[in-house]
């Protein structure tokens, strides 16, 4: 279902403020798929994404009074921000596994050049999302915050409690991996016909 726009969005916000079940159901059905895609960029496990979405919608429904409508798209942007924030908090609170695979990626990614143009025109969005989800958590988070949330490395460093240099290098490594996988996907597709 496509998220509401314009006047419908405003009506939805008013319904949510009145805490009606119909308003909450409408919001849930309109934004579920969109917020799933947002969370899926950060959290690779589908089960975790489902759990996160429950928390996100509870947060949206219970704290709707904190939102002030500023025109078409503002509610969608606010929901997006809530989803990103909850995803980051989820990643932060989870126990970290030993990322032995990171070391292998680190050595290889540092040596490869990153193309200026990712050449993703022929890649379906679902495939691109899957490639992003394959990235190691550290690279994936920095990549998402830089590319989709327009955060600077300074901001990312503050959010993730890492150094600014680390943010830049993680982004470079994420791009290098994605470039390699995109190329591999295209080759596999061309061989397959």
């Amino acid at each position: 279902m496509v998220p509401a726009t314009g006047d419908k969005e405003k009506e939805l916000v008013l319904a949510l403020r009145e805490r009606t079940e119909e308003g909450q159901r409408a919001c849930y059905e309109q934004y579920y798929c969109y917020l799933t895609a947002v969370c899926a960029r950060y959290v690779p496990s589908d089960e975790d994404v489902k759990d996160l979405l429950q928390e996100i919608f509870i947060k949206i429904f219970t704290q709707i009074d904190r939102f002030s409508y500023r025109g078409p798209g503002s509610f969608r942007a606010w929901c997006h921000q809530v989803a990103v924030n909850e995803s980051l908090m989820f990643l932060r609170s989870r126990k970290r596994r030993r990322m032995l695979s990171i070391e292998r990626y680190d050595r290889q990614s540092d040596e490869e050049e990153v193309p200026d143009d990712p050449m993703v025109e022929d890649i379906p969005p679902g495939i691109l999302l899957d490639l992003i989800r394959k990235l190691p958590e550290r690279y994936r988070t920095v990549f998402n915050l830089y590319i989709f949330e327009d955060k600077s490395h300074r901001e990312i460093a503050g959010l993730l409690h890492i150094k600014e240099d680390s943010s830049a290098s993680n982004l470079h490594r994420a791009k290098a991996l994605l470039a390699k996988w995109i190329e591999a996907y295209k080759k596999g597709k061309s061989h397959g016909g």
Partner: protein
Amino acid sequence: MEDKWKQKFKEKLEGYQSDVQIPLFLPLKKHHSFVYWLMGAAAAAIVTLLLWLYPRQERHPDSVALHSIHEAVAEVRMNPYQFVIADFNLPDRTHIKIETEKDQDRTVPPPQVQRQEPTTPPTAPGQETPSENDTHTDTDSESIQSKQIIPSPSSPAGHRHWSMKVQGVPRLAGIFQEQRFERKPGAAVFMDSLYSFVPPVKAGISFMFPISQNWSVESGLNYSHHVVKWQARADHEPFSESIFHQYFLGIPVRINYRILDYQQLSLYGAIGGELSIRLAANNQEIHYGTALPNRKLYGHPLLFSLTAGAGVDFRFTSWLGLYAEPGIAWYLNEIRDIPDYHWRRPLSFEITVGLRFSL
């Protein structure tokens, strides 16, 4: 030149919606954390224990159910030779001075209750024993000096009743800050983070029950609020802030010893401990001026502390007093998931002030 990675990935994925089956919508329902049940059970247990321990005043078989001193006086006037015990809550050693028309103006110190023994003829078998009200005295000039209201046998003179305290621990210490460097001073961009630890405030209610002349035990419930602020700064300008709030419910258990009594003042010492459980916690984040919804934090960690103090109690009336108790609290463990004041101050100085009601 705009980053092509940003441009192209955004074009592909910014409005993308996952092709998933939407689960059934379930309306939000209020659910009560087990912590609230725990609170209710603890409060019920404390009240039940105190009611069970509360000394019941046994009614004397001859007592009259009177509701005021005036009724007691009237009863004595009507039946001057009747032994009257008023069963309403008077402080210990209360005595009533009752003067008849024939009284001289003399005040007698509170004697033991004098009871006029009636002179009754021996009863023959089968005859009823005359009641006390039929007793005749041969002196009209007899006056009633003062009658002492006998305290209940279960609360001998001088023994304290149990009491209730309403108290608070104000914020006395200042906020202290801790700075952590992300990059060494002198680098191109100076980055650091700043923690501000705010001393907690506490309020509560407790019940104190005497177990002997000088010793008493105390327990109750305390509510406290902990706040820690965190700032990430670049060149001393904050760009990201977090404020952590924690709300605790504590169950203190203490033993008090009354050291000294002087007129309306009492000096006492106390030692004990407190078990606190975190009821709720949340994190408010601000990124470049944009406030995000508060993030609820999960988990109900426990805090254990030992307390000791010495206090002064000033009694305004027999049932109301004001007390102040400086003391120390030593926290034996710490909260791990978010910053907390007691990370850096496991031993803290507190002053508890409050009102004491003798019940």
